[in-house]
């Protein structure tokens, strides 16, 4: 299948053309203000360079940081009504209680609490009160709000109340759009509700963005379907991303890691993505990024998304080396995008990490004659420090004692030595467009995360039930049934509860239909 992978980054929009497992071309274009211009241009370039006619392209996969940037910048978020089904529980902490003021204001800060919610074992805390919900709908309508996020206690275990409340609201608010927390997050009401509210507030932007992507593709003569990559490296179709824009929040690092995996052929590895200012280190397990197990802040808001576990350090190709001897420091400051002006090797007057590796003959960039006067011991000292920083980050993310390889991608990966401790470093071909490759190879997934009572079933039966459920979700999302395999499973016994209950997280993946 011939397809195009696109990565819309902060600086560059990259595109690759792939035929099956073969990369036909890879290009970079500057990201444009409207995003779409850069997408159209990079696709045009990759079509030209590969010589593939537009009609032969079967699909386009896009990775974008558009939605997470909107949250970080508090832009393009619309006023949202947060409704929590919980009473009498959970009234001591209202929705958005732990949000920074500016983002709470960006979504309007309006919330309602109503009777409802479930216990951990599926019993109702309280029945829904339709009269109460009608009253809330009237108030939401009167406030002129058209976007509603509904959360309910233990909705990952039982989502019926969220659905019933939505149906009831639709009677009075037929044009409103809804986000249900059970469709987005895992257990942890505050974090899941946060994600649902952010998602709801981005629905207008996602509708606009989806339209614009459609237009950009039409402009360059592509009529094939397109997909957006989500946090776990799997794909969403356009209807899905329109409904769940938050699921793209971490797609950047995910695509870089999966791209590195594909380009090198390694499925279990540490990926080191070195840019100009920072280095992101992640771990690949079976070709997918390992997920963070704790909460992740997005724009100051706690969420519990499926996000890759990425450790970032202030080290990049533009990082400044200052001081002498024992007081020598590497970073955290960087010349950043000014590297082509400021670094010594490019004629500037700042000693950067790139100068260090060039002067030591470990990389071939710029004009090394400009580095002639540098003290060798000082350079070696700096290089040792760089290696130590990366090595510590790598050890931190290492997932097993096995000697797995390190995959180096990103423009700054010239800083990497050939080996690190007992690990070999691999710099794959096309390493600078690894993100776009990661987008192009996206898969379809299905996930289950809920508590299973073990009073009447065994752990094995519960795991099997979870797998069936996840498989069904993947098929619904567009996966080919024969290709589905188990990616990850984890069960945590619930402390303090006699009788036996366990929380199972399980994920399956499959290749895209067709």
């Amino acid at each position, binding site marked *: 299948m011939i397809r195009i992978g696109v990565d819309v980054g902060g600086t560059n929009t990259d595109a690759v053309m792939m035929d099956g497992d073969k990369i036909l071309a890879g290009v970079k274009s500057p990201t444009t203000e409207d995003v779409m211009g850069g997408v159209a241009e990079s696709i045009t370039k990759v079509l030209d360079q590969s010589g593939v006619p537009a009609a032969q392209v079967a699909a386009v996969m896009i990775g974008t940081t558009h939605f997470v940037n909107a949250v970080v910048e508090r832009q393009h978020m619309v006023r949202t009504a947060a409704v929590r089904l*919980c009473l009498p529980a959970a009234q001591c902490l209202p929705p958005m209680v732990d949000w920074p003021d500016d983002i709470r204001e960006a979504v309007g800060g309006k919330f309602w609490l109503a009777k409802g919610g479930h216990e951990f074992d599926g019993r109702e*805390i309280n029945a829904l009160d339709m009269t109460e919900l009608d009253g809330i709908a009237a108030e939401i309508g009167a406030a002129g709000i058209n976007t509603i996020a509904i959360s309910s206690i233990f909705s990952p275990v039982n989502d019926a109340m969220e659905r019933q409340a939505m149906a009831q609201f639709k009677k009075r608010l037929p044009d409103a759009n809804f986000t249900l927390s059970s469709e987005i997050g895992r257990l942890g009401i505050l974090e899941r509700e946060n994600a649902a509210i952010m998602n709801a507030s981005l629905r207008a932007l996602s509708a606009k963005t989806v339209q614009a992507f459609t237009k950009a593709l039409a402009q360059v003569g592509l009529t094939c379907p397109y997909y957006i990559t989500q946090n776990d490296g799997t794909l969403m179709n356009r209807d899905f991303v329109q409904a769940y824009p938050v699921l793209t929040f971490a797609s950047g690092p995910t695509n870089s890691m999966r791209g590195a995996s594909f380009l090198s052929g390694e499925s279990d590895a540490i990926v080191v993505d070195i840019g100009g200012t920072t280095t992101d280190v992640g771990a690949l397990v079976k070709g997918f990024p390992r997920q963070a197990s704790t909460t992740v802040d997005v724009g100051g808001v706690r969420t519990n998304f499926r996000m890759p576990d990425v450790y970032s350090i202030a080290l990049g190709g533009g990082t400044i080396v200052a001081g002498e001897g024992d007081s020598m420091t590497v970073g955290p400051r960087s010349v950043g995008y000014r590297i082509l002006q400021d670094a010594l090797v490019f004629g500037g007057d700042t000693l950067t990490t790139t100068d260090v590796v060039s002067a030591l003959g470990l990389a071939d960039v710029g004009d090394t004659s400009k580095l002639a006067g540098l003290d060798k011991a000082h350079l070696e000292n700096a290089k040792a420090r760089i290696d130590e920083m990366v090595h510590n980050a790598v050890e931190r993310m*290492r997932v097993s004692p096995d000697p797995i390889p390190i995959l180096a991608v990103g423009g700054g990966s010239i800083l990497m030595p050939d080996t690190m401790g007992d690990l070999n470093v691999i710099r794959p071909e096309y390493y600078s467009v690894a993100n776009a490759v990661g987008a192009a190879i996206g898969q379809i997934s299905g996930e289950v995360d809920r508590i299973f009572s073990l009073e009447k079933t065994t752990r094995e039966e519960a795991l099997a039930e979870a797998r069936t459920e996840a498989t069904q979700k993947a098929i619904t999302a567009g996966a080919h049934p024969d290709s589905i395999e188990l990616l990850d499973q984890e069960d945590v016994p*619930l402390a303090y509860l006699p009788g*036996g209950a366990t929380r199972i997280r399980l994920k399956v993946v499959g290749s895209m239909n067709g």
Partner: protein
Amino acid sequence: MADSMREVTLEDLDALEIGAAILGTGGGGNPYIGKLRVREELRKGRRIPVIPLDELPDDALVVSLGGIGAPVVGVEKIEQGEECLRALRAVEQEVGRKVDALISAEIGGANAMEPMLTAAQAGLPVVDGDGMGRAFPEMQMITWSIYGQRSAPAAMADEKGNVVVFRETASDKWLEDLARATVVAMGAAAGLAQAPMRGDFIKRAAIPGTVTQARNLGRVVLDANRNHTDPVQAVIDHEGGRLLMTAKITDLERHLKGGFAVGHLALDGFGNFQGDSGRIDLQNEFLIFTRNDVVEVCVPDLIVVLDADTGHPITTEMLRYGQRIAVLGLPCHALLRTPEALAVVGPAAFGYPDVTFEPMVAKKGS
């Protein structure tokens, strides 16, 4: 006691959250939600006075209270907010007297905050101390019980309006069993208040100064983070503890046994501990630290696991293969080291009859 807390303020909350989690020794539930709730109470203009133990009148009536349930449920079904207050009122009604102050049953974890919330709501002070000085999994593992106070009459309340009073129980272990069954019926989260105790008993039996201790402990971590100094060393210096190992988790096994998360961690030392292998046995909390097959620190001394880089505490539910951790031993209070205490909270009480408690040596007096 020059720096004893006199009042819980908004500025204390981040530090209390971290300090309480450190003293939770892996268990006790995550205090994040408790922190948010205390913040809401303070923002309403309510106040939380703190009384140092030595200023408590002998005839004051003090109630020990806290939440009971599963931490995983606690982050999903947040409390209505006045569960402990209703349990407190039920106990007051049962004994026919109003109480004068509240005290935390368990400073480690989420229960550090519960009495503060109830104090704000009821207009009462909290006593600077608690009944464990850390976290323990069962209710009879508390100094009140160890030193002769009976927990009944006790009361439990849930968010739905159910209040259950335990007028008499055959033993404190029976109260634990009955309360455990009740909390499951209530939806795995409830507030529990125990029988009022006299001030003179509390002064004898409480682990002193633990509210201030938790706050100060959190402060040294936050200060170290801010000043880019070593937070792990800061915790050790503050508590007179010992760095047992910096290590990477190389195996992690957890399973369910009698309603508790039971298991162990295998550790591979790094830094100054390169070549050492370690093991931590856990039952909700970290119980026993073994180096190269020799037991080095065990319950009731505190075994604390911190993120090696940030110094932030890692609870047993957050443990993950490959994490880089610092394992610390902190000496428990002398009240937990007496023969009568060790019979209830020593290694044998957790199913390790072959392990003998050897008190770890403190670097400074407490």
